[in-house]
């Protein structure tokens, strides 16, 4: 297969960026999107040009580091799929593909397609945990938790922290990311005690870090690679205003 690529190139955070045209040829349909970019980079390096900088690590859809905006969608055309799990068979031969970074005011661009998502770590640091120190825990089976409760908490806990929700939101809101952690811990009996303070602190941190407000468009849920529901945002809001 062959493709025309229009890739966002930007030397540094403060530099001005632009879309640059590239072409790739002889790509097999089984190649992943990131491997296609690897092949482009190999050519660029051998030509003495600067390769395209992009984030990735595990390449199995769980670390959450890959984050490309492909043809106007976070992680590309497939639902519930991170960029690294997207394969070229999902595109038409000869297609033009736009590749941009995740854009949000809280995610400064470092270089090309690489972004800075430390704001998400800061939200977690503000309260996204149960305050239990090593050694304090009681016997695990003393806390019985129904299978339904655990599974529902898990739906929220499965967040990979990629930031697709933020990038897809017209307001650049981290409501889904924050709500997923609040909801995960709220739905478990161990997490209920600190719940009030946690919700207040995390929402406050989210606002202070430059993320926008949630206006319930639901775009985040559509683009979330883990399919996390916006019902968690409703829960966060309800608990915040209680």
């Amino acid at each position, binding site marked *: 297969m062959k493709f025309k690529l229009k890739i966002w190139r930007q030397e540094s955070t403060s530099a001005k960026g632009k879309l640059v045209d590239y072409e790739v040829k002889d790509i097999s349909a089984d190649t992943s999107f990131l491997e296609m970019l690897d092949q482009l980079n190999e050519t660029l390096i051998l030509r003495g040009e600067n390769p395209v900088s992009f984030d990735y690590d595990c390449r199995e859809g769980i670390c959450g580091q890959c984050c490309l905006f492909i043809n106007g969608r976070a992680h590309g055309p497939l639902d519930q799929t991170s960029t690294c799990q997207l394969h070229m068979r999902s595109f038409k031969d000869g297609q033009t593909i736009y590749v941009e970074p995740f854009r949000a005011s809280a995610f400064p661009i470092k270089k090309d397609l690489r972004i800075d998502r430390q704001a998400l770590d800061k939200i977690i640091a503000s309260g996204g945990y149960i305050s239990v120190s090593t050694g304090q825990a009681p016997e695990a089976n003393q806390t019985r938790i129904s299978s339904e409760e655990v599974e529902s908490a*898990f739906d929220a806990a499965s967040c*990979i922290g990629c930031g697709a929700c933020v990038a897809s939101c017209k307001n650049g809101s981290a409501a889904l990311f924050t709500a997923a952690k609040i909801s995960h811990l709220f739905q478990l009996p161990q997490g209920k005690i600190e719940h009030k303070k946690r919700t207040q602190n995390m929402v406050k941190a989210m606002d202070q870090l430059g993320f926008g407000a949630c206006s319930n468009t639901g775009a985040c849920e559509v683009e979330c690679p883990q399919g996390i529901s916006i019902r968690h945002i409703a829960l966060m809001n309800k608990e915040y205003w209680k």
Partner: protein
Amino acid sequence: MYFSTDTATTPIPKIPEGDLKDKWSNFKTHARLVSPNNRKNYRILVVGTGLSGASAAASLAELGYQVTTFCFQDSPRRAHSVAAQGGVNAMKNYKNDGDSVFRMFYDTLKGGDFRSREANVYRLAECSASLIDQAVAQGVPFAREYSGYLSNRSFGGVQVSRTFYARGQTGQQLLLGAYQAMMRQVHLGRVTCYSRHEMLDLVTENGVAKGILVRNLDTGEISRHAAHAVVLATGGFGKIYYLSTLAMGCNGSAIWRAHKKGAWASCPSWTQIHPTCLPQSGNHQSKLTLMSESLRNDGRIWTPRVKNEDRKPLDIPEEDRDYYLERRYPSFGNLAPRDIASRAAKERIDSGHGVGPLKNAVFLDFKDAIANQGKETIVKKYGNLFSMYEKITGINAYEQPMMISPAAHFSMGGLWVDYELSSSISGLYVIGEANFSDHGANRLGANSLLQACVDGYYILPQTLPHYLAQLVKSEKPETNTPAFEESENKVRKQLSELCQINGSKTVDHFHRELGKILYDKCGLSRTEKGLTAAIEAIRSLRQEFYQNLKIPPNENGINEELEKAGRVADYLEIGELMCIDALSRQESCGAHFREEFQTPDGEAKRNDREYAFISCWKPGNPNPVLIKEPLHFEFTEPTERSYK
């Protein structure tokens, strides 16, 4: 001769006195302590923020120490522990199926083919139960029965159900628990986290670890960090095979650079080749995705009975299928340990029974499980794995069997540590996959998450203070020293040399070539002839690397090729030591299968008389030096490891 042997040095494993079950409590009872108000005066560096690093950082900070962590990922939550799927073992005996600490200890020791220390392995089993309590308290959503009690499943190499799991994302959930515990300490000001920072050197003075040199991967800036102790929690180096189940950034550089400063490396060639991965389908691939071993609870592994079968799997009738694991290992069947399952798959593939376009895979079939338990149950148990399989291959595994193949996965080998997890350099501790300790020559499934957590939550927070308490109190960590100066000059020189080669081949080219050599010659099976050839091939590849590498020449700012070049430069040295290690061990044990040493039915043939020791490698000039730590079996009797 590629190495020399030092018989004058005997490593001291510092195993506490007493009966097996009393050793760990004896250690804790007699360990030195640091009083609560003094702890803030001690600075500890933790390199790597996976399960072992994050759990250690959190636990040490909770005690009151000042901790600084480093990871090369853009967030500590992305360390590769996140990708572990199937589960974590723990001795709770919730199933009432005869489990005990001793049984778990014995399973692990036997699983490792009696090539690990009894005392270490026993402690792993002993601490396992607390980990489940801790994780549940943190909010890890382990699977539950409808009654609300915790659920278990079974993993390879055991006959009880002691594996706790969180869907197919157990590693992710455990890591998030540890990461969140660490971020809580960040909020409290006791932990400082540096993301996108890579360790480039260990700084030592008079044989004592004093700090590290790190490079900011976003700016290229090099900085010095001094501390009272350095903890390496940098994971495994299986990515050396290029195609592996590891993340792209996983590397061996931190442990290798510490090794070059004198830390012994143990059994570096003992690599777990995981039996259930997606097969290679062409030359474009950058990794091979793992499919959890838990699939072997219900999936049956088979190949066609005849060679070069060209019928589609669904058209092959039962009588023409060879369920070779069930045939060869009737009592463990599809849950035979990983090294055995991988070798059996290789045997089938090599003998012409492989399946798939490149004939390099075997089938993993859920037809019977779906018929017996219903599709709904299988969806609930493995849904995310099936959908991952479909995303990558485009094949619906509910309708036709999966195709799987062995791939490099876990490094049993690593830096040598004693019972206290201290390396051979004072003040340098090594935890998790980065060390060689509990798994011997083969790790059992669901024991890696366990070992990482136990090292970080329970062992290091007891053993590290024992070291800190005897340091001279007036000595403050200091970066303005000749040792730091020398180290920084060396690191800067290395980086600029790599930038200046300006040859005609990319880093990935060299990495792929090295991977091929190692997979063929130092992978699932090894021979003297193959290993010798591999050493020579790696030496010439290394020479070519320094003559013909091409990377963008900028040392400042983001330069992924420079990062990769540094890692591959180290891999080219680690690879050679792996081959020398495999060559020096003239026996087969666990994952180390020397074709010259096998039983008549093709199983690994151990040689306890001559090789019941841990190989400890010291850097030497011109050749590495082998030191032997003898293994003593006081409480068990090493037997032939049979799963038949």
